[in-house]
């Protein structure tokens, strides 16, 4: 008996309905996602336009040059000379200490901010009533190694400060107003979130390309990305960094100065006891004073004139009548 292998009407309609639904679904997906123009050129994403102003305007422009063998006593004397830490840090302030932890190098080689200074400064901030102190930097060498070997991580922990490592999520793109170089560039803004005070704490170091690494160059550590392309115009980037940041204070520790082989150093022979620590509100003036420790003048360092021309401070630090104390 021949088998009746014809499709029944019911089956045919069912099958046709399912096929139609498939076609319809495919068509709907294709239509709703169809992009006739292709991808647009990359646009600059959302970005920050300015850092908060961390300066204490009521305090005015103050500066103190403290001299002595001991960096911690220099720091205490230097802060006293600008009116005491209480003039800058009040109860409830949230302080960020931007240290220079650039290299995985022990404190005795002075390639990084000395941990004793970090500890004492953090301690004084807490004593003045700060609710939090954050210690941060985006170093050149491996960050964890840098904070460990430089002793800064341990100093921060001991003082009860929080160490913030430069994790990727903490960077946000930023364009500094009127800047030529810092445009749409990742900056470590996450570490500054919620902060009310920012203090730069830097050593004094020889730097072959720029002439010197001091307080203004210290802000380089707030940049992310392949920031070393800025070395092609190092004097301008340092001035732009100074324009980006309006700090509460800068502390420039020249108790020991790296005279040669900077900014990495690597040998005690590169160092000189210069017995000076400068504290001030005017980062241009502080760097101009620091230049003398390297046997240079402000005129030898073009970034100082550039920063001055941007109205960020004065290269003639003597005009501020800095207090000079011995500790």
């Amino acid at each position, binding site marked *: 008996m021949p088998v009746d292998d014809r499709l029944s009407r019911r089956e045919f309609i069912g099958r046709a309905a399912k096929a139609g639904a498939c076609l319809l679904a495919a068509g709907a997906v294709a239509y709703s996602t169809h992009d006739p123009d292709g991808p647009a050129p990359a646009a600059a994403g959302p970005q920050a336009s300015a850092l908060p102003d961390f300066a204490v305007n009521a305090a005015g422009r103050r500066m103190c040059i403290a001299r002595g063998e001991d960096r911690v006593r220099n720091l205490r004397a230097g802060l006293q000379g600008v009116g005491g830490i209480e003039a800058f840090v009040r109860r409830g302030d949230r302080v960020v200490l931007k240290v220079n932890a650039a290299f995985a190098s022990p404190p005795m080689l002075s390639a990084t901010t000395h941990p004793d200074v970090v500890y004492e400064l953090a301690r004084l901030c807490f004593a003045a009533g700060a609710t939090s102190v954050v210690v941060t930097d985006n170093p050149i060498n*491996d960050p964890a190694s840098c904070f460990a070997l430089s002793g800064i991580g341990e100093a921060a922990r001991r003082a009860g400060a929080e160490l913030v490592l430069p994790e990727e999520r903490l960077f946000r793109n930023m364009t500094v107003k009127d800047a030529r170089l810092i445009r749409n560039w990742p900056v470590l803004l996450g570490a500054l979130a919620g902060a009310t005070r920012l203090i730069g704490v830097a050593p004094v170091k020889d730097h072959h390309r720029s002439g010197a690494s001091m307080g203004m160059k210290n802000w380089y550590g707030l940049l992310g990305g392949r920031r070393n392309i800025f*070395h092609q115009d190092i004097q301008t980037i340092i001035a732009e960094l100074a324009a980006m940041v309006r700090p509460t204070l800068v502390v420039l520790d020249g108790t020991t100065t790296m005279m040669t*082989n900077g900014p*990495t150093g690597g040998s005690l022979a590169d160092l000189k006891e210069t017995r000076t620590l400068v504290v001030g509100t005017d980062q241009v003036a502080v760097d101009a004073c620091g230049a003398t420790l390297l046997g240079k003048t402000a005129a030898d360092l073009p970034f100082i004139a550039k920063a001055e021309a941007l109205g960020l401070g004065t290269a003639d630090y003597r005009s501020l009548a800095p207090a000079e104390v011995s500790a």
Partner: protein
Amino acid sequence: MTIRTARRVSQIFFVLLLVWFCVAATLGDRFWQLRGWPVNWLLDLDPLAGLATLLATRTLYAGLLWGLATVALTVVLGRVFCGWVCPFGALHQFVGWLGRRRLRSKLRVEANRYRPAQRFKYYVLAAFLAAAALAPLGSGTLLIGLLDPLPLVQRSVSLVLLPLAERSGALALSPLPRFYDGAGLIAAVFATALALNLWVPRFYCRFVCPLGALLGLLGRYALWRIGRTGEGCTGCLKCERNCEGACRPTGRIQISECVMCVNCLDDCAHGAIAYRTRPSSEGESLLPDLRRRGFLLSAATGLVAAPTLRLGAATGPNWNPDLIRPPGALAEEDFLARCIKCGQCMRVCPTNVIHPAGFEGGLEGLWTPRLNFRIGTSGCQHTCIACGQLCPTAAIRPLSLAERRGLQSFAGRGPVRIGTAFVDRGRCLPWAMDTPCIVCQENCPVSPKAIFTREVFTPVRATAPATVARAEGSRIVLQGDTLVAGRFGTGDYHVLLPDGRRLRITANGPGWVETEPAPGPGTPAGSALAVQIRLQQPVVDPRHCIGCGVCEHECPVLGRRAIRVTAENESREPHHRMML
């Protein structure tokens, strides 16, 4: 608790221990970081790593002595290590169980039948050991790490699974998620080995594992063993349903294949199977039926392996200069006689600069450590000695900081060099592009710096002629507006005056430049303004360069770096010496 549950607890414990050791191999002093955790312990327990390096070097290094514990365990109790300890074995067992848990009993018994091909793993072992044994004569090599299950699983977790977990955000072991060049191949081998369990359970353990073969040989005289009691058996074959080793418990049992999973003990409802000193009532085979022909063929393969691989002269005159080994690595032939490719150095490296090699070191060098300065948070930090301290076989010798840096009693020998940096003058910005840079010089970590600079003043490319009109104060005024405003004010540009004085430009407008010091007389009207750029061109001093690669890592020419380290002048190979 049944004995099967005890076995499962033990397996889970050792898998977690492996993961924990991989996590804890992070440089640091937090509780979960490397601060005394015995992170090499599972590798040390591997008697195959011990035996193979013993054959290859005639010594048993440090912690590898732990392998004796496994040997003792196996000689007395059989392959307990495979069934209870080996984390790779546990993973195989788990995947095999996942794939077969719904299968009918008959198919499971079929999957677990003894196969003569199980002898293949003994041939693998013979080939690897034969290759290692010739190393002291200079014509052998240690390849065991390719298939030895403990290095294999350790590197797979450290270099594939942990980085994937970091990338997913589930774990944060280092500030930046880790990269491992060549991790894909490691993952492929690991995944294939696991996937094969869906075809035959414990495929790797039964057919491939050279450690299993070694333990099979050692366990042949075990005092206690699994076997039939000779009473109560109804032939239900339940004991074979879950037999991990495929050792044929119902028949003439294959003692060397039993991995002591003890499933048969629990599964037999009739008391027909026991773990005891008396031999099985159905008889025992101590070893699979090894064929003399197969054995000789595999041993011969091992014997000619290294000489054949070295026909390419990769350890001789054709050495690859791009193969930078970690500081403390032995000379290449000695290194290859020890490295078990476990990945511990790559895991612990704080800067993520050590990577598993592909074929840069030839087939022999697969998954051995190689430095890649384009990846990682920095070059190889010269204040770090972590990799050599961790290496379980001393393929990377444990250096002291003093030896690495050439201090104290090592002052005469100088620091350990892993290579030398070379400036590519065709790509370097100050050399080739008239653009200031010297990031490499800045970051060179040794003192005195191994990179110094030569100062040159080069005329800048003029787009339009600029002619001096007059000098007034600090300013030179030009005839017409021919300059791009601001272009020369960076501090790097200078004006060369006809009288030979060179003045730094501090600012410029379209029709003027200002200089420091002021131009004064000597700037005749009508003369062409000669603008020069001051360049500091980097030069490497090979007497100070240690090859750390920080310069290469930092070089802003990101693709092919303008300064690159090659293995020239590395301390470990006297015949790679470059300098007089």
